């Protein structure tokens, strides 16, 4: 995944979406589904960030010859 600026906006959008969904589901009484959506959003965002950090460390290794 290329590293570009809208990655930050994607993560923030998912975060806000999950927060709203969680609030709506909690209000409508479905607690467990709210928890599920929160966890799902978190997993998606974590996958994106782990991939991003992996690219970062690969770049640093190549720049600083840290083998």
């Amino acid at each position: 995944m290329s590293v570009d600026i809208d990655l930050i906006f994607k993560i923030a959008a998912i975060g806000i979406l999950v927060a709203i969904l969680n609030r709506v589901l909690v209000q409508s009484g479905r607690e467990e589904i709210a928890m599920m959506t929160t966890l799902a959003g978190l997993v998606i965002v974590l996958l994106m960030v782990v991939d991003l950090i992996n690219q970062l460390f690969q770049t640093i290794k190549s720049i600083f010859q840290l083998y």
Partner: protein
Amino acid sequence: MDIVQIVSIGLVAAILAITLRQQRPEMALIVSIAAGVVIFFMIAGKLSAAIQALNEVMRKAQLNNIYFTTVLKIIGIAYITEFGSQICKDAGEGSIASKIELAGKVLIMVLALPIVLAVFDLISSVMQ
């Protein structure tokens, strides 16, 4: 990729992180990590160009290459350690951050040891 763009990205990411902090603090942390990585990738090109230039100077001066590569490794380790410990501090985990810094210091010391020994040998040989 000038400084204005980098600063604007940093500010926007900070604002997004604050909005997320009330409901989902973990998402706010992830947004700040993503912003840090994106900003680093913006300067990575210029950083590697500068390091290539330094490499060139070192090669022309016929200095032993081992010293310069060790210095580069130390800078790389220092940067990664700083990156990790700063994020742990943002997340409120001060103890983990200090453990990461301790590990970074030990690794850097291990890397710097041969150079220090070389300097001592040089000094002792000069003294005789």
